[in-house]
């Protein structure tokens, strides 16, 4: 038995986009155990529901995280609409799906860049973020903000996108897809990428399911689980299937996300072709939420659950978000056992950690 030491990883580390602390119990170069500690970005956002009313809370929900902000707002809005039985206009649902898929593309591209940076491929990181800028420009033109969209509200959406603009975006998406093809070829074929990622951090199907993994972390181990299968929004009217890989290693998790980018491009084209005309918001929202509901959505990182409970007052009684990164912490702890120290940053990044989401 080799000598055991404890190496503190984080909260400040060049590879981490957000602070998380892991105590790595090492035996020579191998990790025996990893003990996580979170709370560096805890802002107590759930407790703010006591101060802000249910209409204003959507803006707090959107600001839980910068990368996955739109779907946070969407999940909150859907839960309130279910409690208060608000019927959202059709065009609003399609626009929400449009922005949700744009959000997924930009998040996955950001992650692809960070992953490339994690194993030292800086030029790939730069190019990923360069291609991402085109998507962020589309989001900026349609929603008004690059990071925080601010376009979802209870009862609909805050702004409309003209059909002419949607047509322009459709042709822009095809151009962006061609640029993204080059990046996909590198992730899929490059020898150095394979050398770093093949066979690293393997998680079997049974382990992933029993440890509560969600999102691409689960789908890369062979489980076809996607919260969009719940048919919220307009996903029942679109043609798509969950992207699944079976290897369960870092390369599989990477390929699942990159293939999801292609899938989101296709979903965007379907949404733009099928979006109906009509109003984008309900006329008036009367009353206060009284009851509870849990809405589940698919964020780029996995399944997110929004549990909202109202008691008839204008402030919610409880606002609880179970984010995908929080659900992926136990699988992460499992994956880190037995790996070498140099692979630790890579494995942490392959679960796509969004610590702001995990801690709220």
């Amino acid at each position, binding site marked *: 038995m080799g000598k055991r030491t404890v190496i503190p990883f984080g909260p400040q580390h060049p590879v981490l986009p957000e602070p998380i602390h892991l105590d790595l119990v090492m035996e020579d170069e191998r990790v025996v155990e990893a*003990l*996580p*500690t*979170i*709370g*560096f970005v*805890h802002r*107590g956002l*759930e*407790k703010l529901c*006591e101060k802000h009313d249910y209409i204003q809370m959507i803006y707090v929900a959107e600001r839980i995280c910068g990368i996955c902000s739109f779907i946070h707002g969407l999940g909150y809005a*859907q839960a309130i609409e*279910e409690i208060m039985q608000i019927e959202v206009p059709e065009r609003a649902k399609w626009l929400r799906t449009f922005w949700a898929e744009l959000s997924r593309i930009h998040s996955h591209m950001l992650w692809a860049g960070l992953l490339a940076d994690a194993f030292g491929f800086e030029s790939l990181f730069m190019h990923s973020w360069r291609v991402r800028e085109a998507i962020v420009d589309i989001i900026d033109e349609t929603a008004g903000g690059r990071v925080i969209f601010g376009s979802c509200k209870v009862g609909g959406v805050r702004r409309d996108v003209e059909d002419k603009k949607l047509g322009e975006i459709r042709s822009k998406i095809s151009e962006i897809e061609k640029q993204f093809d080059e990046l996909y070829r590198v992730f899929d074929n490059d020898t150095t990428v394979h050398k770093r990622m093949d066979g690293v951090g393997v998680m079997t199907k049974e382990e992933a*399911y*029993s*440890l*509560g993994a969600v999102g691409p972390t689960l789908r890369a181990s062979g489980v076809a689980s996607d919260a969009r*299968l*719940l*048919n*919220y929004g307009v996903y*029942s009217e679109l043609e798509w299937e969950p992207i699944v890989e079976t290897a369960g290693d870092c390369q599989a998790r990477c390929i699942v996300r990159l293939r999801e980018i292609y899938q989101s491009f296709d979903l965007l084209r379907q949404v733009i072709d099928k979006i109906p005309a009509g109003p984008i918001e309900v006329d008036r929202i009367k009353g206060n939420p009284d009851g*509870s*509901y*849990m*809405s*589940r959505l698919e964020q780029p990182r996995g*399944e997110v*659950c929004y*549990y909202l*409970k109202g008691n008839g*007052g204008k402030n919610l*009684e*409880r606002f*609880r978000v*179970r984010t995908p990164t*929080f*659900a992926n*912490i*136990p*699988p992460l702890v499992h994956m880190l056992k037995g790996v070498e120290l140099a692979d630790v940053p890579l494995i942490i990044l392959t679960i796509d950690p969004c610590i702001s989401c995990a*801690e709220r």
Partner: protein
Amino acid sequence: MSEVFEVTELEASKLAETAKQHRGEGYRLVQVCANRLPESFEILYSFDRKEQLVNYRVEVPAEGATLPSISESYLAAFAYENEIKDLFGIEVTGLVLDFGGNFLKTKVKTPFADAPPPPKKKIAVKKVAATEDAENSDAKEPAPKGPICEPAGPYVPQPGDDKAEESENKPADNTEEKKES
């Protein structure tokens, strides 16, 4: 088309047994959520299999709250139960991986443990018609016309205050001094 949300009441003593049963049936743990009520804590457990959600609500008293852990059946529950322990102060017994209050570090210990604020009392507002207002008004003087501006800053000149006159003259003196220098 949205999924149905139904919650079943469950006693804390039967929690571990129910979790074990669901584990055997192939359910995965989705989330564990705690909520502080005026006199108790309510904890919501959610399990899912093939996109079907099953929810249980367990209620424990606020004073001396203890909850049996389900981490023997669902190892993933250690994250949720440690979070509940750190945020709400609920004692979870039988945790497989117990961080002893150090999982989610906050500046204030158990920040969510306090009872919720009481509902605000509604103040009855008597609506008075516009024509009655002028007749029944208690104001002795008519409201002043135009905006009322109060000077900002630490010193507010009072009427009959000599210093006020001096402070008005000061800027002029300063400019004269500067010209001389």
